[in-house]
């Protein structure tokens, strides 16, 4: 079973994504901040993918992305934000995908499948 981590400071989003991806057959880990996510990723050896919100208190998604890129090089990361403007930030280009949040989770589900299939 593949393991996905959802990093988002919005509890409702975490709950929604957990329900969706659990139903898809993934093991889902949750983190409410960048710091919590980094710690959990270090503890969990076999994490397969991270869905990462950007705008968060403390360590934001882009900072966490930079850390993940230097510490966990092969770990696929999908940036998932309510903001489309971060696409202009070159740092966001280090992610494997950038998807704007939507009530229709089809695109997100497909991207996860695609990255985990590689």
């Amino acid at each position: 079973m593949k393991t996905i981590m959802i990093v988002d400071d919005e509890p409702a989003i975490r709950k929604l994504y957990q329900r969706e991806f659990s139903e898809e057959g993934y093991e889902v880990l949750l983190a409410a901040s960048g710091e919590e996510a980094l710690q959990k990723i270090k503890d969990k050896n076999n994490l397969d993918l991270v869905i990462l919100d950007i705008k968060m208190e403390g360590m934001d998604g882009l900072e966490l992305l930079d850390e993940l890129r230097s510490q966990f090089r092969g770990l696929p990361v999908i940036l998932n934000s309510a903001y489309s403007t971060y696409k202009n930030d070159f740092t966001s280009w280090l992610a494997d995908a950038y998807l704007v949040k939507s009530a229709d989770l089809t695109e997100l589900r497909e991207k996860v499948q695609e990255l985990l299939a590689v």
Partner: protein
Amino acid sequence: MIAMLERVIGENSPPGFILSDLEWYFVLNRAGRPVHSGGRLNHSPSHINDLFRKIPQIEYHLDNPEKSGGFYQVPVSLSDVAGTIYIGPLPGGEEFLIACFNGDPTGKQISKTHSGLYFLSLIAQTIRAFHDADDLEDILRIVLTGVTAGTGLGFNRAFVFLTEVVDARLCLIGKHAIGPASPEEAGQIWGKLSSGEITLEQMFNDLLREENNGDSPLNRLINGLVLSLDGHDNLFARAAREKKSMLIDETLLCEPDYREFRERLGSGPMAFVPLVGKESLQGVIIADNHITKKPIAKTDLQLLDIFARYASDSIEKFRLYESLEGKIRDLEMANRTIVLSRENLLKAERLSVLAEMAGQVAHEIRNPLTVIGGFAKSMIRKIPETHENYENLNMIVEQVGRIEVALNRFTSLVNYQSKNDQYCDLENLIESSIHLRTGDAAGRRFELIKNEPIMILTDPDLFRQAIFLILQQAGAVSENRGKIAIRLEKSEGRAIVRIESEYDAGTFAERLYRSFSSAQSLETTRRLAVALEILKHYQGNIGLETSRSNIPQFYIEIPCSEEVG
């Protein structure tokens, strides 16, 4: 007429003559040139005294003029009209009265002194008029009036041409002309002038008061006339080049090159006097006696030459002033544009703040929408279509979808970029990028070779990031062997950052360059793509070139910028 005078007077030329048909009168100098305007008398004088009473400048003591050889011999002496230069037409009429000043040495001496004084007076009055002139047109009209007025240098016609660059060639362009275009017009003008006893100063004052009418027949004659200053043998070019006055006539103007000039102005004789300013050739004055056909004496040319020197300085000053004015106008325009741009920038900044706020609100709406719509969709999947909530949930999903579409449209409108472009010292940027790496062994191998300060316009954080990524790759490519030198140079407005390895320099450069297109891992490729994208965003790039010692060298280039206040 002059020949007739010479025949009458012979070699014993007196200082002056008075010539009249008892209706008009003219005062002529020793050379037979009219020096004072001939004025139409109100009635034909019955006696020569009646005539002389009309000429206030002439002192005479005459009760009974003697008649000798058909001409009256009138003992008069010159007063302040001596030496003035004026060319007046001789009206029709067969019988002329020619009165000669007596030839005593005192009269000659007075004449000579007065000539010099008069010329100085002409120069002084002209310079005074220059001071009152408002523009170059006024200056040109003053110059030409001085050249043509009877109380000035007394030529019939005068033309001024100014130098201009046309199609990258220096040319003389016809600018202004004064004088009668025909004998009829000459009679009208000079008759009007002579009856009023107008001084040169009055003429200048009138000229400066009046609106410039550049549409006179003579002006039309030279309007658009271009004299080329090209060619070694070109008459005008030679005179302009040698800055020498000369007399030109039909023998010099017979070449086909001067056809248009001949057709418009006639074929001489003409005085051609360059207007030579302190800095450069400003133009030329061309003057002639087209109406009276009076020969131009060497002294006339000399006086015109001296007069032209004063005129040249004023013309040059005014042209420089006009050029300066043009530049000031350009600067004012540029300043207005800057002010306008600044205002627009302020407006844009205000709008940007509003847009940012609106955008943030829109984005804040997206999170709850995602949750509402997402859960609604999830619930729909779990209930049959016949369920009482199925339709309600569908309506929620549908309405959320509509809001999302509207949000997407709105956020695309208020989307903003927040880059922090500023003028940065390239050396500092590179140095701080290296310092980011001093924590590891690879970082300590970089050596920045300092040079002159180079400023670039960039977002320092982004640029540091790009350099950091490239240096990281340079460290990997060098396989941690030897030092890596970073040299900064400036070339043709671009900053060049050379990255050179002391170990196997050529292979290092080629491998580093190639890794931008085909790195070993996807992640490295992606990182270098980000770095390259940052460089290209600021019109920069990477490159590979061969050094003098035939070794490939890797370099980064980016435009230099000069910091502006």
